[in-house]
């Protein structure tokens, strides 16, 4: 009883202190100087400090991070949004955490994308640099009591798997099959760890390489490749289902691999997409529908035409709107928005949302009919995309200022 009162009191006091700090503008001062005081060992709330940089493969590096102050331990398989500044503009990407929750440090493993601005910058970072990271998120996580598992990964899709197998090493899971696919031996991320893992009881590791196992010109991973890698998983004992159908299957890899594995129709499949989703192909049968925007951006409700073969996010941006967005692949929910009416299709799963007042993600929603949206959260990041700037330039200054101003005021 007393402790409850005490806890409430201390929470109230803490809130009051925070409010006062904000109103007295002291919080801004502390925020301003915290990064300057890093040398004193003051840990930031949203910055992780890089303690080491490890080369994994010629184009992949692991950043070992000291977690930010107040970091809530992630679940194996979750990701964090890494934010850096490129030419003064905050830019973020999602990276799976490749360390297990019980590891003393956090790790992200970054594959350098050719001409990738973010991955290029991340590869240029050194020990001692700081990195802004968001709290861990994601539903691609190990079940609490894992039984039989298949971890299926391709290329840099292995990063969340490392978090999983490291967590599994601590548990009593007895039957873990790891199948990893890469182009060449040199491209295998965590190769040495996989070798060591293969010797552990309860773990079985199969690495498939394009240049060793596939016929020339036939690279990639498909059901056939999985059958040759682990044939026994496809065979069921007499009268029972195949082993594979009873396993929790976790898959993460390039889009083509994901599509093929999903097409197998496994009942206990968990997927994680880490590559940007391929844009819906231009459909000659696509028709034009109308999208109505609600909220303050346009009190009267701006209505604009959209096609049924592109995502709402892409099309709104092309029309000069600036909805807040993040991963652009249906993960982070930054672009979540209320759909008041109309039907949209999920670009990845194909799921249809036709009920009124459902929350949809603009980045993976393709309109099927006329759609009416609720208020759209405006982007804080002024995207550097030229068409957006062009759209802003052509705005009448009054309209623009009206959009900028946060609220109210009727000019008349």
């Amino acid at each position, binding site marked *: 009883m007393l402790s409850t009162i005490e806890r409430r009191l201390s929470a109230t006091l803490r809130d009051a202190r925070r409010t006062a700090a*904000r*109103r*007295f*503008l002291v919080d*801004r*001062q502390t*925020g*301003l*100087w915290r990064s*300057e005081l890093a040398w004193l060992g003051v840990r930031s709330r949203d910055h992780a400090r890089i303690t080491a940089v490890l080369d994994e493969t010629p184009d992949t590096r692991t950043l070992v991070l000291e977690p930010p102050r107040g970091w809530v331990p992630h679940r194996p398989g979750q990701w964090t949004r890494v934010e850096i*500044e490129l*030419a*003064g*503009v*905050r*830019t973020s990407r999602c990276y799976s955490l490749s360390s297990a929750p019980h590891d003393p440090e956090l790790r992200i493993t970054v594959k350098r994308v050719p001409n990738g601005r973010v991955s290029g910058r991340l590869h240029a970072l050194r020990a001692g640099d700081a990195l802004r990271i968001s709290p861990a998120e994601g539903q691609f996580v190990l079940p609490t009591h894992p039984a039989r598992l298949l971890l299926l990964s391709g290329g840099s899709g292995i990063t969340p798997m490392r978090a999983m197998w490291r967590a599994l090493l601590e548990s009593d899971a007895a039957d873990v099959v790891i199948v990893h696919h890469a182009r060449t031996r040199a491209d295998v991320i965590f190769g040495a760890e996989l070798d060591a893992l293969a010797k552990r009881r309860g773990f079985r590791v199969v690495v498939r390489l394009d240049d060793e196992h596939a016929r020339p010109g036939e690279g990639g991973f498909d059901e056939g490749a999985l059958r040759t890698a682990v044939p026994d998983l496809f065979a069921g004992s007499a009268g029972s289902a195949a082993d594979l159908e009873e396993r929790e299957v976790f898959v993460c890899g390039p889009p083509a691999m994901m599509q093929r594995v999903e097409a197998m129709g496994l009942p206990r499949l968990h997927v994680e997409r880490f590559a940007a989703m391929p844009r819906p192909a231009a459909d000659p049968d696509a028709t034009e529908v109308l999208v109505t925007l609600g909220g303050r951006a346009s009190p009267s409700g701006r209505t604009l035409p959209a096609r049924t073969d592109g995502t709402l996010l892409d099309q709104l941006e092309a029309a000069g709107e600036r909805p807040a967005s993040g991963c652009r692949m249906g993960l982070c929910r930054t672009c979540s928005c209320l759909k008041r009416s109309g039907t949209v299709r999920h670009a990845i799963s194909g799921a249809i949302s036709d009920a009124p007042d459902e929350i949809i993600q603009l980045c993976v929603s393709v309109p099927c009919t006329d759609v009416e949206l609720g208020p759209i959260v405006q*982007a*804080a*990041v*002024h995207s*550097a995309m030229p068409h957006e*700037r062009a759209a802003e*330039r052509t705005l*009448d*200054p*009054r309209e*623009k*200022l*009206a959009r*900028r*101003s*946060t*609220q*109210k*005021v009727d*000019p008349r």
Partner: protein
Amino acid sequence: MILDTQPIETSGRFDPANGTAKSVVTSDATRDVTRSPMVPTSELRPSHGKSSRRLSREESDALGRELDAIRAEVLADLGERDVAHIRAVMKASGAAAIAGRTLLHFGIDPVTFVLGTSALGVAKILENMEIGHNVMHGQYDWTGDPALRGAAYEWDIVCPGDDWRSSHNYEHHTFTNILGKDRDIGYQFLRVADEQPWEMRHLAQPVTALALAVFFEWGVGMHDLRVAETTRGEQSVAELWRRSGPFLAKAGWQVAKDYVVFPLIAGPNAPRVLAGNVLANVARNLWTFSVIFCGHFPEGVRVYTEEETKDESRGEWYVRQINGSANLDGSRWMHLMTGHLSHQIEHHLFPDLPAARYPEIAPRVRAICERYGQVYATGSLPAQLADVAKRIVRLSWPRRGKRAPSAAAA
């Protein structure tokens, strides 16, 4: 002088009959607007001996396109150095505030008092002018840094950020110098333009202007409450009360911060800290008052009527911003301390471009103004301030110094 006998088709700009704009190509290029009996009186005021040429819509739009090109160029070039600049100013302001408060709290001699008060004053000026005003315009929204988000920034002054964003960013910057629409013309109680009707209370305006200078932050804070409108019966008392809420809350916290909590923390040094905080705030008030009054009220800056600005094109909006603002000459440091409001013209043309860019584009804006015969009003701070003071004194009397149209034509 040659009188232009051709009547100007003022109705050509806006045809009330069918509500559409007709651009009438007249002999605009040769016509001197000061000689026309049809144009509003505001255009008759000489601005340091010259006045802007009246532009046709085509000319205005061409001017607008040139300005748009400058804007596009700067937008495309925004990057690391803009962020580095504003963060450096934030750090300088933060450091000055800490240094000033430390000197005030722990010093006992008059030297540290003066130093501490000055440092705190400088910190507040930088925070209000270069950081607060500019960030709240959304000049750094493109960075995506929450600390630089215009819609969320709160500044170190009794005026609530949200009030400022609507009354300044929207009303003043959209309806700049339109009589009856821009409430910043004389802030509803000073007569700063001949076109404002004279009232008895204007007799006292030299004194009220001085008082406003000393208590400027309170004037700014109460601006959006619309007290004058309430006394005139144009706004209900209930609405005044509703508008007062955010202001009273913000002002309460500010008073508590500068005049209660910080002095109390100082213990025996409380009177000294209180005095230092009061002086720092007043110094900031005097400085911002001076800079802001020089932005729109010196001689040569004109006001517009609602009729004139109906159906205004984007180009004409630009022309109004040029003719409604005045710059201040000065050094790099002077520009910084004014939050680059010394480039009031550039600021009004591009309120959402990072202000530190204004000095870079100013020569080009000035060249465009010259080519189109538009007055690019500028002067030193003392000269412009003297100008404004003279005008406030002159306009405190009815009809004095106001030239009749016939006089100009003679």
